[in-house]
């Protein structure tokens, strides 16, 4: 952005506070008329140094901190962190705990996608969409709240299991909620397919092809909308995803419309997974037997070693690289968030489009700046 401007060019700064943004970052656009000639992103407005803090917290305290990496998907972050530690400890949660984790993570996926779709609607001026999806999201949040006791940050997973069992009456409450959600998703789908203005704002906007998407390093719905069936739940199954029947949702167009469509279809798949889980969930203990791990984990030291564990976040591939030196605190923890490469891929996508499309393209990425900044 330092180069000299031509007489008919200008720079506008979107952010750090801008309605288009899921959190503070700055997008500097170089424009000629309405066409974007160059774009640059400045990050770090909410960089809180989580990796450094985690090095100075015990593993148990770390669960609370990783919750706050991305507040929309706290349980998935926990799964990644706890999964890393479990691999180093060499323990595996019992079947019931695994099912409970899958249930909660799929609920997290649903609420994150609902917020993502709603935010996208708001960014392109379709504010009613935001209200519709938030209304459904509150229902899902109350289901999560029922189990974990919190809406956003849970600290629910523990090493080797989960903190509490599903409360009485969870299934009875969950099934009608999911049925209602199914109907709502069908409504959204119909609305997207029939609303002419919506289609004009999204179809053919911000097109990514499979090869370009791969070379940009994106993952999640943004990649799947280009037709690449890359999903960690299938490629590298963790928990009980191997035993569950679900398909990886893909679209071929690679534009904003396809990205939102992938998210809608994933909500349907998640509902299907949840129904299977609620049917199949076995009874049993919540922690592995004959180990010291339980609801009140003792002061624990993790054997020296290193591990890279990946899980499927609603936004794509979430990975953590944990190095332990045998003490009670991680020596190093690198968080590989899914939105970071997606945000990085934003400037090449918006160059050549118009200013009005910037909001649409940026919104269709379904962002969470907190996780990109950490």
């Amino acid at each position, binding site marked *: 952005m330092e180069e000299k401007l031509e007489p008919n060019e200008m720079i506008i700064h979107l952010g750090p506070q801008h309605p288009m943004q899921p959190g503070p970052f700055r997008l500097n656009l170089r424009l000629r008329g309405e066409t974007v000639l160059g774009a640059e992103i400045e*990050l*770090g407005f909410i*960089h809180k*140094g989580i*990796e*450094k803090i985690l090095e*100075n917290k015990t593993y148990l305290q770390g669960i609370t901190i990783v919750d706050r990496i991305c507040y929309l998907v706290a349980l998935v972050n926990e799964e990644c962190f706890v999964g890393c530690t479990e691999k180093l400890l060499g323990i595996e949660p019992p079947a019931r705990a695994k099912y409970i984790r899958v249930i909660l993570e799929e609920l997290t996926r649903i609420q994150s996608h609902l917020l993502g779709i709603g935010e996208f609607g708001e960014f392109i001026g379709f504010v009613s969409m935001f209200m519709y999806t938030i209304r459904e999201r509150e229902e899902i949040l109350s289901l999560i709240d029922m189990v974990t006791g919190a809406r956003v940050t849970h600290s629910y997973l523990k090493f080797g299991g989960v903190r509490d069992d599903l409360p009485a009456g969870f299934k009875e409450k969950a099934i009608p909620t999911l049925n209602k959600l199914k109907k709502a998703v069908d409504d959204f789908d119909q609305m997207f397919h029939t609303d002419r203005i919506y289609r004009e704002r999204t179809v053919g906007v911000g097109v990514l092809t499979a090869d370009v998407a*791969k*070379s*940009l*390093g994106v*993952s999640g719905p943004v990649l799947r909308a280009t037709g*690449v069936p*890359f999903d960690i739940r299938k*490629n*590298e199954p963790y928990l009980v995803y191997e035993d569950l029947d679900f398909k990886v949702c893909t679209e071929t167009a690679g534009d904003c419309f396809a990205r939102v469509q992938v998210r809608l279809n994933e909500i349907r798949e998640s509902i299907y997974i949840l129904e299977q889980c609620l049917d199949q969930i076995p009874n049993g203990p919540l922690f592995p037997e004959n180990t010291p791990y339980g609801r009140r984990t003792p002061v624990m030291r993790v054997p020296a070693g*290193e*591990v*890279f564990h*990946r899980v499927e976040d609603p936004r794509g*591939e979430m*990975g953590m*690289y944990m*190095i332990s030196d045998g003490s009670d605190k991680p*020596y*190093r923890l*690198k968080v*590989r968030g899914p939105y*970071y*490469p997606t945000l*990085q*891929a934003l400037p090449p996508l918006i160059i050549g489009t118009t200013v009005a499309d910037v909001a649409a393209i940026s919104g269709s990425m379904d962002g969470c700046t907190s996780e990109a*900044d*950490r």
Partner: protein
Amino acid sequence: MDVRKIIESLTGTFPEAISEAMVESEIRARAYVDKEKAREVCQYLKDSLQFDHLCSVCGVDYIKRNELEVVYHIASYDHPVVLTLKAALPRDNPEIESVVSVYWNANWYERETYELFGILFKNHPNLKPLVLPDDMLGEWPLRKDYKGFPNTTAKNLV
């Protein structure tokens, strides 16, 4: 693709550059790479072994060994193997060739590693701070001997 074949192919092609290659599990492998050859090895991985997805680049500070490590996690969109490639650098003058020309998305990861650890990436197109304010450059906050942590400016600390 089998993880053992990948390691064999890698050590066979770069017998000097790759050391301590080991298979951790069916889907994880790790190896040390000579810092001069890191870019070349990445190019080979991408072209010949389908490692077309760079998960992350990060730094690790081994203060007792007086070394900094750059760790590349390289994966693929086709097979589930993740290769952890490490390059050890001296702590007083850490420099390594940038891999942006191979993996486009290494750009931000390298910028972040630069500002947090002080590892210089040669031939990087735009090596400037990403998440830290400009005046914090040079403090290298994620190194183990960083003095500014914990921050004690909060007035109500107990």
